[in-house]
């Protein structure tokens, strides 16, 4: 440690150090991956579509509000398949993937726990109970334009997280360990209630299981419109909190000594992440793995700073789920695999490979 020369100042001013990891290229790459995934998602399917015509149709629709038009687009049934079936489905897949991944990254940051995922605080169990209840007992299929199952899942997820937060706060302030335990207690209780309702109504078992495994097949434009505002607000809040989460990462006491209010920050992040999760769950059911593993994949690419991990998770999560949905549609076409099965089948080996490669590099 003879290099330690405290008190000596560098003679030259250095505004930015060389070799500093810039977030630009990584974000650009992830954005490009998302765009390519979206294009692949609308192009590939049971009905073959010429790729040039797909691009022409999409550009035409994008430019038409501005008075432009692009020739060579699809006609009739092909256009309908593209614009009314594939496009909303692919968009929902990207929104759900993005929402789950950024929520997962935020939960992991807030709890300083790499095993945290968006369903940790009772969101999944609450949504599951809500959906099962209305599948079994509801006399109506929809409230206005909104399906009753998405609505019940959304409300159930928020109630689940709300109970966990209320219990955790009452039991021990806003400490992360107490909140986590409260979440586990609430989730266990709600999951037990869901199982009970399900066993009493075995006729609906198939529909309940279909929902629990996650599905994107029924996505419509109305879903996209419904999801966007909630996800937009939640993701904006989370992206803004990136740097604050970096401060929280050094522990509650030290974050306090740096002028941050850990309890308040934790509450804001949990509420925003739970809103994103509840919205995603409402339109797609319970899709596992994305929220847990995408943030870890991203961290291996960009390092641990949340200011980079959160936006990268958003983009990579969107691209990942679009590709998983593509595989789900294609492998057993015309039948479909449950999306939750695909995310784990693709994600687990990929993640294992990353871990292995990381271990070899050391």
């Amino acid at each position: 440690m003879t290099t330690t020369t405290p008190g000596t100042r560098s003679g030259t001013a250095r505004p930015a150090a060389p070799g500093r990891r810039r977030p630009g290229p990584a974000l650009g790459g992830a954005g490009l991956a998302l765009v390519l995934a979206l294009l692949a998602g609308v192009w590939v399917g049971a009905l073959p579509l010429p790729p040039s015509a797909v691009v022409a149709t999409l550009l035409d629709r994008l430019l038409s509000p501005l008075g432009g038009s692009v020739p060579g687009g699809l006609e009739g049934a092909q256009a309908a398949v593209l614009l009314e079936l594939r496009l909303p489905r692919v968009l929902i897949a990207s929104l759900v993937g993005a929402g789950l991944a950024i929520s997962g990254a935020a939960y992991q940051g807030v709890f300083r726990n790499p095993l945290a995922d968006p369903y940790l605080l009772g969101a999944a169990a609450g949504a599951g109970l809500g959906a099962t209840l209305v599948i079994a007992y509801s006399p109506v299929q929809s409230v206005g334009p909104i399906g009753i199952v998405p609505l019940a899942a959304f409300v159930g997820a928020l109630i689940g997280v709300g109970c966990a937060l209320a219990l955790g706060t009452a039991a021990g302030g806003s400490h992360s360990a107490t909140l986590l335990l409260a979440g586990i207690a609430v989730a266990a209780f709600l999951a037990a209630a869901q199982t009970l309702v399900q066993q009493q109504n075995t006729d609906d078992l198939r529909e309940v299981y279909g929902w629990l495994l996650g599905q994107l097949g029924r996505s419509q434009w109305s879903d996209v419109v419904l999801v966007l505002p909630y996800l937009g607000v939640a993701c904006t809040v989370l992206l803004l909190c990136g740097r604050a989460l970096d401060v929280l990462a050094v522990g509650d006491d030290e974050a306090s000594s740096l002028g941050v209010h850990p309890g308040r920050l934790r509450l804001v992040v949990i509420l925003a992440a739970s809103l994103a999760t509840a919205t995603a769950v409402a339109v797609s059911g319970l899709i596992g793995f994305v929220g847990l593993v995408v943030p870890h994949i991203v961290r291996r690419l960009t390092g641990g700073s949340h200011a980079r991990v959160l936006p990268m998770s958003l983009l990579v999560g969107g691209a990942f789920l679009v590709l998983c949905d593509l595989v789900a549609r294609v492998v057993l076409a015309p039948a479909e695999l449950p999306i939750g099965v695909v995310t784990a089948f693709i994600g687990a080996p990929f993640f294992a490979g990353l871990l292995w490669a990381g271990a070899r590099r050391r």
Partner: protein
Amino acid sequence: MEVVGLTAGYGRTRVLDAVRLTVEPGGWLAVIGPNGSGKSTLLRSILGFHPHRGQVRVDGVPTTGMPRRERARTMAYAPQTPVLPDGVTTRDYVTLGRTPHRPLLAAPRGVDRQIVGDVMERLGLTPMAERPLATLSGGEQQRAVLGRSLAQQPRVLLLDEPTAALDLGHAQQVLDLVDRLRRQDGLTVISTLHDLTLAGQYADRLALLSEGRVVAEGSPAEVLTTQALHTHYGARAEVVHGPSGPAVLPVRSSD
């Protein structure tokens, strides 16, 4: 910096009882005392993490009830076992010290990067700037934590056992560094130190805490006495006065 009538506890157990301390600007006060005497609680109360009665003043201004960000520009804190987040580089970690000086949601500005660069240069951290914290040695990590505290540009630096995880050589390096920084910048330092010899050699004042009370306060030679060590630590020790301050020499019982 003054602490007046500071009383704190956990539940119904009173840990600190009307503690009164004064540190001159640019001075170094080491809080010593046996295990469980309330040293860490005292630091955490001064920082406002722990509920307490009484008042803490810096340059005559009470910090109790001060907004967090303002307090963070006055006092910096290095805990005994700092949490070193995964995958974060030394530079990004030191940059966290700029948090109270910039909007919480904004990126670091040019002036922040400048200050961080200067601090890292002074602490010899520049060679490991882009390395993840976890790959640094214990002494380097302790310097990174010091760097983060200095980037905060505080008037008072509170160190909880800064040498707890270090061997003797590295402990001396860190304490030399703190001493130089306080002389150059006029920083006021309050630290807990369980090593009495190091405390006596580096701090210019000692406060001996026992059962939540300050039982002795003054220069190292005044506080470190065979009698005090026997009474409050239950220890048998001789105090040897050397050129750089008193040294505590444990004496083994004869039977």
